[in-house]
């Protein structure tokens, strides 16, 4: 780890090169730059997640902490290369006037040619795509479930400023559920007549699930409130009887389908590194998510 105080982008870049040489691995296998915009309290946890995700997608991770915007511009950084993972990280703290110009620090540190992803682990700017750092990236990741203020309207806000390349981890959290539901219909060719999604009161994921099911199945989908955690039940009523996935404890679900015995199904709530790794697998626009955004904006409730 190299500590830099009162520094600039060029010196941070030099520190990357230096630590790579110290590590005797001049090869750069990295496939993307991941910029994390985060506050001091969440920075280390976010970096840990990013490093874990970069096992699958070797990345240069730039964690940017935007400090107090008053006073003399001040940049400090901690730079290091991977011990046990492929990639590099820099934790960059900005203070003073430069807080309004973070792109001037990040732009010179982007890997040549490779894609850029920005992730806001907690609160994200009002309009991610037009944020100074968001604009550098072709992929922007928000998390409507992790915002610290305005939780009830978080998903709506993400949708309102949606632009291609943005996606939300609330959507990623659904993948295992959706995969099981889709697989159920792969193997039992039944017509769904209506559906319901049960989840804790505020759950952007559940709202997306409702939007997805009603879009794909073209049937009414009811939203029911439970104590959680997260989504607890998804039920598809079919002409042959219900297909149900019920998960009370956030880990082990029960899968039921017509004319088949009930079976246990491991359906744990996935942790951030896994969610992030899934996001980084696809760097183009998520067309399905784009469609759901439209539907959520036009839906009368919620």
């Amino acid at each position, binding site marked *: 780890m190299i500590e830099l105080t009162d520094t600039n982008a060029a010196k941070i870049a030099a520190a990357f090169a230096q630590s790579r040489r110290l590590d005797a691995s001049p*090869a750069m296998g990295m496939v993307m730059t991941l910029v994390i915009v985060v506050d001091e309290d969440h920075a280390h946890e976010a970096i840990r997640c990013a490093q874990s995700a970069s*096992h699958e997608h070797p990345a240069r991770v730039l964690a940017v902490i935007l400090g107090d915007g008053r006073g003399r511009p001040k940049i400090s950084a901690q730079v290091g290369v991977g011990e046990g993972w492929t990639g590099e990280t820099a934790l960059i703290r900005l203070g003073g006037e430069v807080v309004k110009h973070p792109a001037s620090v990040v732009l010179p540190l982007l890997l040549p040619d490779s894609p850029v992803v920005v992730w806001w682990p907690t609160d994200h700017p009002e309009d991610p795509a037009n944020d100074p750092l968001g604009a550098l990236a072709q992929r922007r990741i928000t998390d409507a479930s992790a915002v610290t203020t305005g939780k009830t309207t978080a998903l709506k806000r993400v949708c309102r400023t949606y632009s291609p390349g943005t996606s939300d981890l609330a959507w990623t959290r659904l993948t295992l559920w959706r*995969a099981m539901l*889709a697989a159920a219909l792969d*193997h039992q060719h039944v017509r769904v007549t209506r559906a319901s999604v049960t989840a804790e009161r505020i759950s952007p994921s559940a709202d997306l699930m409702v939007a997805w099911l009603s879009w*794909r199945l073209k049937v009414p989908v009811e939203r029911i409130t439970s104590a959680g955690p997260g989504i607890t039940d998804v039920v598809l009523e079919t002409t042959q009887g219900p297909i149900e996935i019920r998960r009370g404890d956030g880990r082990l679900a029960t899968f039921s389908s017509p004319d*088949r015995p009930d*079976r246990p199904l491991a359906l744990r709530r996935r942790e951030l590194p896994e969610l992030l790794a899934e996001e980084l697998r696809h760097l183009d626009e998520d067309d*399905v998510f784009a469609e759901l955004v439209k539907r959520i904006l036009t839906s009368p409730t919620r």
Partner: protein
Amino acid sequence: MAESWVNPLRAVEDRRLPRIAGPCAMVLFGVTGDLSRKKIMPAIYDLANRGLLPPGFSLVGFARRDWADQDFAKIVHDSVSEHARTEFREEVWAQLAEGFRFVPGEFADDVAFETLRSTLAELDKARGTGGNHAFYLSIPPRFFGDVVAQLKKHGLAEPHEGAWNRVVVEKPFGHDLESARELNATLGQIFPSGSVFRIDHYLGKETVQNILAMRFANTLFEPIWNSNYVDHVQITMAEDIGIGGRAGYYDGVGAARDVIQNHLLQLMALIAMEEPTSFDAESLRVEKQKVLASVVLPRRLDLTTARGQYAAGWQGGEKVVGFLEEEGISPTSTTETFAAITLNVENRRWAGVPFYLRTGKRLGRRVTEVAVVFKRAPHLPFSATQTEELTQNALVVRVQPDDGITIRFGSKVPGTSMEIRDVNMDFAYGGSFTEASPEAYERLILDVLLGDPPLFPRHEEVELSWKILDPILAYWAKQGAPEQYASGEWGPEGARKMLSRDGRMWRRP
């Protein structure tokens, strides 16, 4: 069930959704074997942990052991906690554990197979496996006939409407063309050719699939991928270990049958084949078959092949015994532990480019790689002394360990004079990435359950491989004892001579 069923939840643009196998049960013959414990059982757990196995998936063990279901579950538990790639989670175990069954018995035992039949029927009811059964024969091929006959006799593999039966077999796929055909005929009695899945775990490896991506997704390599630029190709699979406890299997089989027939010829086919029209099983197989069918052996097998047996010596700092002193090996055995062969591919792309294939045990280190070695530049504007240290450019696909691709080319040595020396440009498929990427067996077992065959060699390919190898094996059989080579080095003198006759050298991998 209408043929035209379209799953409304699967949108084509929805690339997040993985394919999940349908409800099914797998019957594992040979549960006590190394392969079952170290690869198959952990792979099943890892698949479940990644959410790719259907709820209700059941695993039936069959072996000559006096076990109850719980004893079998204990064996699986131990194997998973020791060898699984992903973290152990109680809920994943809970999903799997209800579906473990054990059937004790021998292959000739009618009662046991009747129990197996009722066990599967019970699972179809209790776990909803729907009559879909995969039979994994992790047993020596000489028992295939018995098992297949029993499955047939007890009606275990009869086709049912809307259900499937598949059989999975591991190498060796016979020991020559004739036995390969017999084996295929045995399996073919009850399993149509599309239901036979031959596992060549090399084809499940990410790096091997990456060969196709590298060749056919890029413009950079294809223009030079031919005899105009390529001088020769070396395919190496080296092991640092000896035969270990496998004497019973290995004696009489040898390196060529064990490795070249399947892994190396498949690697060669992927490197040499033309572009398939698509990436479905049929198109890939057509191209692989075409290139295997164009392989021609050199006329003088005495000059273009080599074989050896490891002698006692030192490997990696440990004193080791020679092959002939290994327990269970006859001191007069002529089985080779090292084999090297030369193949010519008679088509427009490769005419005049020899493919050198070698494999051996107790060599310098464990490594598998394909090296495409390019011709020297036709003219060098440098003097001979300036380029003394420049050899031939090479592109090396490192299959294992340290998966990736290396390109070797000349670069100026720092200093005031112009001197040129070889350097490497490395692409590592990922440093710690390999730990995150799925094991070959996970991919292959999932493909079996999905019925997706692109990564499995068909019997046509197996037969073509034996047609290539049989004349060499017949020639070697007349030559007496193989040459001895020092353990921990890179094979016998004969292998070196084989290349030096062509004015070439083996790479040190």
